């Protein structure tokens, strides 16, 4: 793979990789650093990339492994709310309406899920991967992916329902 192919095939993955890393790390700057490192690693091995069936899956798996290393090396926990606040402040005006109370509610429900389920929702409902790819990236079998996806979706639905009825009672 030469420089041109790398630029046209690998680098466009940056936002997917970034969102995936951010789901893991809950930290914008750290997620960007990780994606940079992923690209450097792939760039160093660019001669061998054509041997892989899917460079995208390789990039996602590399991102996952670097994130796990990063989390292991953390000496203190990050504050995801702090990161989210800064994220909202830096958001352009026209996108701010997207972050309504409802969406914040889903985000909160999402954060309460086990990490594996969060990542499966990320890969399926946000990035639109098929089950085969998700199974490869998460190193699970397809059936387990399906079961966890179903659990995660239902859990979010139920959490939203309870917080809505709570709002209703309060008003």
């Amino acid at each position, binding site marked *: 793979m030469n420089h041109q192919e790398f630029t046209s095939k690998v680098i466009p993955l*940056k936002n997917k990789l970034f969102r995936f890393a951010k789901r893991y790390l809950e930290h914008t700057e*750290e997620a*960007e650093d990780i994606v*940079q490192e992923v690209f450097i690693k792939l760039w160093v091995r660019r001669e061998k990339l054509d041997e892989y069936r899917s460079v995208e899956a390789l990039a996602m798996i590399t991102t996952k492994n670097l994130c796990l290393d990063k989390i292991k090396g953390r000496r203190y926990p990050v504050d995801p709310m702090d990161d989210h606040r800064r994220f909202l402040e830096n958001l352009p005006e026209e996108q701010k309406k997207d*972050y309504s109370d409802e969406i914040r509610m*889903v985000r909160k429900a999402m954060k309460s899920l086990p990490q594996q389920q969060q990542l499966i929702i990320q890969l399926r409902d*946000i*990035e*639109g991967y098929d089950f085969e790819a998700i199974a490869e990236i998460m190193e699970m079998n397809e059936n387990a992916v399906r079961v966890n996806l179903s659990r995660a*979706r239902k859990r979010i639905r139920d959490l939203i329902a309870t917080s809505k009825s709570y709002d209703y009672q309060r008003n």
Partner: protein
Amino acid sequence: MTTKEIEALLAKYYDGETSLNEEHLLKNFFKGDSIPDHLMAHQPLFKFTSTEAKTEVSSRFDQVLQERIGTGKVVPMNPFRKHMALSLSLAASIVLIAGLITLFRLGVFMPSQPYGTITDPELAYVEVRNALYTVSSNLNSGLEKMKPLESFSVGYDQVQNLQKFKSGLETMSKINQLDKYQPFKFNQGRKTN
């Protein structure tokens, strides 16, 4: 799409059985305005997943990446935060060392008057011997002053004799028995006027 179809798709969706195509249909449906009230509760999740897919890297990401790939250097994109502690402690130690060196150079730690120096070894020997003599003679005169302290031990031996008191006291303790008897009254039988 009819409400019935949407309801059926939703049930499949929560069971993890929908295809990517069907999920796309659901996303589009919940983007629209014609959502029946009883389905509104499902909208936030689909809104959330559509919104999250818009999150992108910061604008300087590409530039940093191009620089790094061009030079092959592995530099963190946000180095400040990561290395802040390290650089702060480095800066502090550099300031400390520089400060100490300056102070030494200014001679702050040197005595204000240099001591006399002797280059001739023989003279040095004589000087040292004189100094040591002075020390030892002073020491001896001090020791002589201590001599009278010996009479202390003589006094101490004599004080030891006080122990004999103790046996005397034991003999005296027999007097205590007197307390058992009625006190002798001198005035008995004498008239008072």
